[in-house]
Structures are given as C-alpha cells and as structure tokens.
C-alpha cells in the first residue's frame, strides 16, 4: 500500500512540476470557469439579485466545465510522447498511476475553485462564507467524485481519435448524480433560510458516491489500461 501511495505521489508531483512550468491548464481552466460565471451573471442577475438556487447551479456548472477541460489536457500531455506507456511499465500497481493523476487534478481543480467561489459570491451575492466548512466539504467531495470518474474515462479515451468530444459524452451521464448532489447541497447553504441538515445529507451522499467511484476506478484502471 505504501509503495502505491509513494508512486502516486511521484506521479502527482511530476504533473504539478510540469504544470508549474507551462501553466497551460491553470490559465485555461480559470479563464473558462470565470468566463462561464460572468456570462451567467450578465444573463441572470437583475438589480443585484439572482434567481434562487442559481448561484449554486452556476458554481457547479463552472466546476464541471473547467474540470472536463483539465481532464482532457492532463492525459493529452501523457499521450504526446507516449509517457503514459512508460508510467504503465513502472514496477508498481497500475492503480498508482491513476491515483497520481487524480491527485494532481484535484490540486488543480482546488486552485480553480479557490478563485471561483469568491467570484460567484461577488457576482451573484451568494453567501459563500455562511457555512464555510460545509461548503468546503461539499466542494471537496463533489470534486473528488467528478475527478475520480473523469480521470478513469480520460485515461480510457487517451487513444481514441474523438477523445475531446467523447469525454463529456461518457463522463456527464455518470457524473451527473455528483453534480446534482453538489448543487442541492450548495443551494441548501445559499438559501435565504439555510438548511444545514439538508446540506449535510447531500454531503453524506457525495461521500458515498466518492467511495463507489474511487473503488470502481481503482479496480478497473489496470485491466482497462492493459489493452
């Protein structure tokens, strides 16, 4: 187990070093997420007020769109010099490669969300600091669920010709329960009369999704990548 975690950390560390040099993913994902929120703000906010529950939905739409962009590019890098094959040849359980890619992606998405949440608060007047720990937990667990299944699909599609088109097509139907739970949990916090117990229920559901998705992905990654 320690060997898997060690190898996963090495892969994640390598991805973060590569990203820190190119900053390609950071700039593009932040730009997409902020642009998405900005467009919705112009469309929906009237006299400083947005429709009920809209900020929660828009926050999660921006997370899903920017996450999808990051997922595709993260594996495109491994495809360019076929470095994914070199990772799969390492004498460690192949699930370590999956975990490493997932970890690096989570760090990147956390960075995007750190910018996104205050922007949503500012443009939609959403009370983002009302229950910060619960909101953080919802975002963290939702992001893990989305990225867990997305990392697996992005790896599976790395050799597909239409991978950029196929990724959202296969990812969103599976990830939609995570996004719905994230939206409902966040909306419960942002509501005029906050429902903390309701948000906690959605959080529990997200944690359950995370456990299922991460377990299934770890289980299927090695056989899928062997072909």
């Amino acid at each position: 187990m320690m060997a898997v975690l060690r190898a996963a950390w090495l892969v994640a560390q390598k991805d973060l070093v590569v990203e820190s040099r190119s900053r390609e993913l950071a700039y593009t994902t932040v730009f997409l997420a902020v642009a998405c929120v900005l467009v919705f703000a112009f469309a929906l906010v009237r006299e400083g007020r947005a429709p009920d529950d809209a900020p929660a939905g828009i926050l999660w739409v921006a997370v899903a769109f920017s996450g999808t962009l990051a997922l595709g590019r993260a594996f495109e890098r491994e495809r360019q010099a076929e470095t994914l094959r070199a990772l799969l040849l390492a004498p460690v359980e192949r699930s370590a490669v999956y975990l490493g890619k997932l970890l690096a992606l989570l760090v990147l998405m956390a960075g995007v969300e750190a910018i996104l949440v205050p922007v949503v608060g500012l443009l939609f007047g959403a009370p983002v600091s009302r229950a910060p720990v619960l909101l953080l937990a919802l975002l963290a667990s939702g992001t893990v669920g989305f990225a867990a299944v997305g990392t697996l699909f992005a790896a599976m599609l790395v050799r597909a010709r239409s991978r950029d088109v196929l990724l959202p097509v296969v990812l969103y139907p599976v990830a939609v329960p995570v996004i719905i739970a994230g939206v409902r949990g966040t909306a419960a916090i942002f509501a005029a009369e906050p429902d903390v117990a309701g948000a906690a229920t959605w959080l529990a559901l997200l944690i359950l999704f995370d456990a299922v998705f991460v377990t299934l992905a770890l289980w299927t990654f090695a056989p899928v990548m062997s072909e």
Partner: protein
Amino acid sequence: MDLVETDDVSRHFGRRRALARVSLGFRAGEVTALVGPNGAGKSTLLAVLSTLLRPSSGQVRYDGRAAVAWGDDLRRHIGLLGHDLFLYADLTARENLEFFGRLYGLGGDGRLRDRVARALAEARLEDRADDRAGEFSRGLRQRLALERALLHEPRLVLLDEPFTGLDDDSVGLLAARLDGLRRSGSIVVMATHDFESADGLVDRVVAVRNGRTRELPPGAGSLRVRYQAVLREAWA
C-alpha cells in the same frame, strides 16, 4: 531473467491481425534484431514482450513463468525504448531520469544520484543535464531516452528503432552500449529498419512480415542481402 519465450502468440486489433502464432525464444547475452516493413508487427511484438499488450492467444513466459505469475515486479526487469521516447518535454534531462528512477525504486543513499550521473555521462549529456528535454534535438532525446530505459539495469531490454535520429558518433555509442548489455547477460530485442547500422551489432535476426516471423539463417552477405533472400525464398 535468462530466457523469454513467446509460445504461439497472436495479437489482433479488431479484425486486423498484428501477430500470428509467433513462437520465439530470446536468451541472455544475445542481441536479436526484428526487421521488416512498416506495420509488419515488430512494435506489437515488443509491446507484448514488455507486458503493455496482452496476447489475444498464446502466452509469453519469462524464465518459464507467465507474466501473471510474476506480478508487477516483472516490469522491474524490463526496459523499453519506445519509438515515441517516453520523455517529458517540460522536465530537464536530469528530472526525467530522476522521476523514472524513483518510480523504479532507485531512490535513497545517493544511489539514484549516482545512477543518474552515470546515465547522463553515458548519453554524453552532462553539460545539458539541466536543460528541458523539449529543447533537445531528436538525436539527443534518443540518447536520453535510451538511458532512461536502461537506468534500472533491466534484464530484458526492448528497443524500438533505436537508431532513429542518431549521427555516426551516437550510433557508435549505441553499439558500445549494446555490446555492454550483451556482456552483462541482458536479453536485447530491437526492432529496426536500419539494416546498415544494425549489421554486425546483432547476434540473431528475425524477419517479421504480416505478423509472422522467420529467423534469418546465419550466412555470408550483408544483413539486407540476407533479409531480401528470406523475403524471396520464404515469403515469395
């Protein structure tokens, strides 16, 4: 690891047959060249030997044991130089070697540092060690990629078109490296189109065509002439 055998190995991609009932043995201290036209199945055979691809039928045995019986540890004994080099363009030469070295468990007690320094010296890249691999010419990247594949001292060395982009001096370096691997008892299998560079460096030659293999008998004449004779006689 002293012997790698393919036993009736076939590999299909959908309806396309890439390998057809290949049975070969590769022994320690022997350099084997796989020669043949594009799409003949050479790279597929290397991918199957490296465990990256599973055979559709048949099996590969490493010292008499199937890959499944070895588990993940089998890959510690395998080094693959791919046609696409497997290098991160945004990492320096040293960082590429250190990353893969750590992944192969070579870290600790300065062991990795020594190995990396030796690999950079073998590739004659000491003065470019801290330059990004993406800034290198194809030949320099090829030399770095070879050292990356050999960093963990594998027993089974698989080289896909190792002469690509190399100048005469670099071909000489590669020849010396192959000789060193032979003397250390490694099993070397390389796929190549470059008959002239491979001539005299290899102990055995296996022609591959349409997924089928045929070993070239030892004889007089250049590698190209012997290969063409097999093409005429065996696959006419």
